[in-house]
């Protein structure tokens, strides 16, 4: 006689199937083709990607919605001081060049959406 089927298998299979369809529906087009591929920012993005992904996903800064350059200055200064960050002063300047471009793009995006008052406070960006 076959042993009774373990009832916990079904939920796992269900989740796997659901995630498969979700994965098929993903859209990384903007991630791959926007700022990181701009010729003048490609090298800066590489430094940003290598250094910042050491402790957190790149989605956090990329989706932060930060529009204020000064905010990025303070934020990168705080990250640079994290133990083992490996972000020296030269890297900080390079990373900020990319993040300032990101902030400008974010301001432009908001302007296009007819947002009269751009956000000065930040919706996101921390590393819990």
């Amino acid at each position, binding site marked *: 006689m076959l042993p009774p089927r373990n009832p916990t298998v079904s939920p796992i299979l269900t989740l796997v199937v659901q995630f498969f369809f979700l994965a098929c529906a*993903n*859209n990384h087009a903007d991630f791959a083709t926007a700022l990181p591929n701009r010729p003048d920012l490609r090298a800066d993005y590489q430094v940003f990607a290598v250094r910042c992904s050491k402790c957190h*996903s790149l989605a956090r800064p990329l989706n932060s919605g930060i529009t204020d350059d000064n905010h990025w200055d*303070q934020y990168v200064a705080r990250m640079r001081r*994290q133990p083992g960050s490996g972000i020296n002063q030269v890297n900080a300047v390079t990373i900020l060049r990319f993040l300032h471009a990101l902030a400008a793009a974010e301001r432009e995006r908001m302007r296009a959406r007819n947002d009269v008052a751009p956000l000065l406070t*930040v919706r996101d960006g921390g590393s*819990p």
Partner: protein
Amino acid sequence: MIRPTATERLIAVVAFATTLLLLFGIAPAQAGEDRNFAGSAQFDYMFARHDSIQDAQAPGPRTPLTGFTTEAALKIAVDISDHLSANFKLCYGCHGFELDMAYFDFRVADEFNLRTGRFSPTFGAFNLRHDPANHPFSDKPLPYDMGRMLRKGDWNNGVLPAPFPMTGAEVNGTHWVGSDVQVDYAAYVAMGFKNESDLHPTDINFQESHLPYYVTADPRPVTGGRLGMTIRLSDVSDATLGVSGMYGTYDFRNRLSYGIVGIDIAMRVGRATVRAEYLVRRQQADTSNPGIFKYAVASEHGDFFLKHGMYLELKLPAAEPLMVLGRVDAMIRQGNVSEAPVGAGGDFVVDSPLMNNVTVVRETIGLAYDIERNFRLKLSLETWQFSYADADNHKNDVSAHVGVVGSL
């Protein structure tokens, strides 16, 4: 001592969260203040081939946390001025709400920062990225495990379950030697771990250390620190070496000590990372009731055990949204075995399957796939090899994780 009810705790948490929102979220920003609001939530399903019958029947929080679990956190970081910043983080996990961070950093220079409040003191390399949004596996490495390991009741979790928020003060800093060598240090005094519920404490009660009341009858703080060095090997690679230590007592009489030392090493090439850590904890036990021990208590050096933990993990980005993961971790426990479960209160004993020299080795392979920015799928398969059989005569086990983590 009167303990708050679950309702009172919930009210306190809601009140605290509301206060945070009012203080930092809704109130207008002061000039010069920059606020980062962040959050994460991981929903994970863990399937284990064998669920130990003995664990399920034993008193206390001994059963492995298989099935669905949720880890969630909300954090706000505020740069108040060039020298002062604050971090508050509220998290929710398997044993309810926890204030993971509530501290201020007063930075005089890069080389001297004073941190005061509630925080996890600097130890090792994992704690900085313990949030499930910041590490790609569903669970933590065994030395830092907090409840997801199989037979956790036998082992009383890892060597240093993370996170480990404590109230205290820390001095830390970083200094660059040229542009290629970064030196970090941290030194702290904090409340430390405790076990005030057992008549004859034989180990730290980590759960008690994370629950109200957040005070301890032991006034002596734990002390410790870390020294680390990062060397940039090229523009896209670096290597880090760190050593950490922590020493304190955990009983209210200040007689039973624990000391933890660790070494961490990491190498990064591009976005691929190899990281390894080794920790060992020397844990003193109350032997005044020898009847609760499995073996006769030796007159010399019989009042402590050693718990070693180590892990080696590899994160290899295969393509932009996909990361391949591999990990080998292990723990070794050497020393007498208390058969009174931690947190059970007194002299009640169970027939512990542990012996005076036992090991567990786990091997994990996994994938992390970014379905969407800030939304990641985590899959992993784990094999377990214990050096001792459980009540069902199993030495080996298999488990699997399916999880998603989102961040904002």
